[in-house]
């Protein structure tokens, strides 16, 4: 139980935050929680199986788009879960061709796919005569916040459970050597597909939450490749072999972003780029890896 204590404490703190009424602080925490959820879900395929995705934003965007399209028709507590279903189905549907590709080609494929979907949505919106869409009467910040907390916790739990499951072990085997894994009987395709589908689910709802929070929707924003880049960098900085990694990575980036986004947004991204390079080259196991090494040495 001692290992779980920091998590439970953290959960308690996060849960109580909206009661302080500090709108701006709640907003920042909300952002942090969404990044945690996104990075945890990214880990399922990209961290465990090593199929690094640079296009995670596509699920986020599609979920957001779904919620926006059904705004006014469906209440949010129906459209958000449905968004999860939509993204899950989408991921499974494209998994057959997409997961055939591996290694670095997978990385750029996911990027290209996200951009492709972005431009299609832009064309659809343009055809419908819509540019940006306004969402009036969105749920309160506290409601959205608690939903985000729920999703972040859920995503963390899923990652935790999968890590210790057979699926997780199989995925890690795939990461080490896919052919060998197949040879020893790991159902490679099935595992990859499940991981891909699962990784797409929660981002769908997160996309919806963000759309509701901003109360303004524009395809370029919700499919912004910087989101994918941030998730990837977050995971690499935090280290993606452990549920703590995405949390640490997301926390680090959110802090950095808070200092810089309003006055020096480019500086923030430059730092992110530098950090990505540094961590890939020197600290491939992220902060978590560093902590584990320290613990092992102690």
């Amino acid at each position, binding site marked *: 139980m001692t290992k779980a204590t920091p998590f439970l404490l953290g959960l308690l703190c996060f849960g109580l935050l909206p009661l302080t009424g500090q709108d701006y602080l709640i907003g920042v925490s909300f952002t942090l929680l969404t990044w945690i959820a996104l990075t945890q879900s990214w880990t399922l395929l990209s961290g465990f199986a090593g199929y690094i995705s640079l296009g995670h934003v596509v699920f986020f965007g599609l979920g957001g788009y779904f919620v926006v399209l059904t705004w006014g028709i469906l209440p949010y507590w129906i459209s958000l879960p449905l968004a999860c279903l939509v993204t899950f189905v989408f991921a499974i549907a494209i998994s057959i061709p997409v997961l055939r590709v591996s290694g670095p080609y997978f990385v750029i494929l996911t990027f290209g796919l996200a951009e492709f979907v972005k431009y299609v949505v832009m064309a659809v919106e*343009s055809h419908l005569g819509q540019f*940006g869409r*306004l969402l*009036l009467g969105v749920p309160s910040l506290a409601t959205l916040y608690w939903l985000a907390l729920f999703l972040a916790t859920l995503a963390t739990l899923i990652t935790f459970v999968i890590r210790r499951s057979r699926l997780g072990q199989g995925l890690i085997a795939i990461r080490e050597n896919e052919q060998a894994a197949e040879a020893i009987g790991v159902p490679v395709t099935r595992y990859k597909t499940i991981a891909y589908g699962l990784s797409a689910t929660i981002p769908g709802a997160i996309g919806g939450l963000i759309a509701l929070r*901003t109360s303004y929707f524009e395809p370029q924003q919700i499919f912004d490749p910087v989101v994918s880049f941030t998730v990837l960098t977050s995971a690499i900085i935090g280290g993606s072999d452990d549920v703590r990694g995405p949390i640490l990575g997301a926390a680090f980036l959110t802090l950095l972003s808070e200092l810089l986004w309003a006055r020096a947004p480019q500086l923030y991204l430059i730092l992110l780029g530098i950090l990505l390079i540094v961590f890939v080259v020197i600290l491939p196991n992220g902060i978590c890896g560093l902590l584990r090494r320290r613990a092992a040495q102690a």
Partner: protein
Amino acid sequence: MLDRRSVVSALFLGFAGIFSILSGTVLAQEAPPIRIGFSIAKTGLFASATPAQLNAYHFWRDQVNEKGGLDIGGVKRKIEFVEYDDQSNAASAVKIYEKLITNDKVDLLLSPWGTVSHFAIVPVLERFGFPVIGSTASSVHVRELNVKNMWFVSPSTHDKLSIQLAQMAKEQKVSRAAVIGSVLPQSKEIRNFLVPALEAAGIKIAVNEEYPPDIKDMTALLSRIKAANPDGIFVLSYPADSFLYTRQAKEIGINTPFQWLAIGPTIPAYRKMFGSSVNGIISMGHWSPAQSHWPRAKPFYDAYVARFKEEPDYLDTVLAYMSCEILEEAVAEAGLDKAKLREVINNKTFDTINGPVKFKGVENMTTPVGFLQIQNEQFHIVWPAEISTAPIQPKLNW
């Protein structure tokens, strides 16, 4: 004993004492500055268009501060701006306005640039009940949404604009039209109203096409227009496209007597770049310093030119300045109470450099939709007749 240390300490204490008394009295006399926040596209896709608005804001702030400050229900307070760059990104504008309200806790807000940004921040304003006078924007959509915290100074709501434009075109004997425009919101909205309006006026639409917002080369599109041989061209453009269109239409030699560009020609750089070749281009606008009905117009023009050494943008600078004038008048009467401000803005008739302004709902009902034409490298109001300063002329060859 009077040693060095005690002398120094005594002097120090003495100075500290005098200083605090003085500053106390000084501070006690001056009311704290009033903080007005906004974001504007200082960089990015729209950056070339926004200086017009930013200049208007800074000009207004300095003018007001010279007179002692903004009159808030009787007390004068100096204006202090809290400005951010939203990088031509509406979603950033949303975040920034929320930050301005919840984190920077500003007293008042001014509007960003462009229809899309105005549109985007509406939910935030509604959520916090923070009234803002819009400037460089107009959209039929917001009229439908019935919002309580934004008003649009620009009369050029696209349905009214299109009807007037079609009428003007008809009077100019346009019979075959080419309509091209960006896929950005304002362009699309204009197109949705303009095409039916033109057809209703008996004008045949020969070309009706869209182009992406970051288009770099219009030659293919313009060749098609030239081949269709229209006598009226409507370019539903944003600033960058206006410049591109003008340059390439000139290159290809599109010599149509009636050419209307939505946004761009009113920017001073436009006439500077193209000189006399753009005489005859018509654009959106309803202001001229030559209009003697509006006593504030010419003094504003003169003071602006004296400070910036160039003319104001006849559309954006004017709209932005008008929004400031309205805010000034409203705050003088209602103070900073948001509910009272809303009431005053909804009911009062304001006096601006463009004449009287009164709102009905979110719209400015008093200023008419107008069109400006470049004649002899100067702008003249050529429509409607009530406020025109010169008759419309056909465009000669490039």
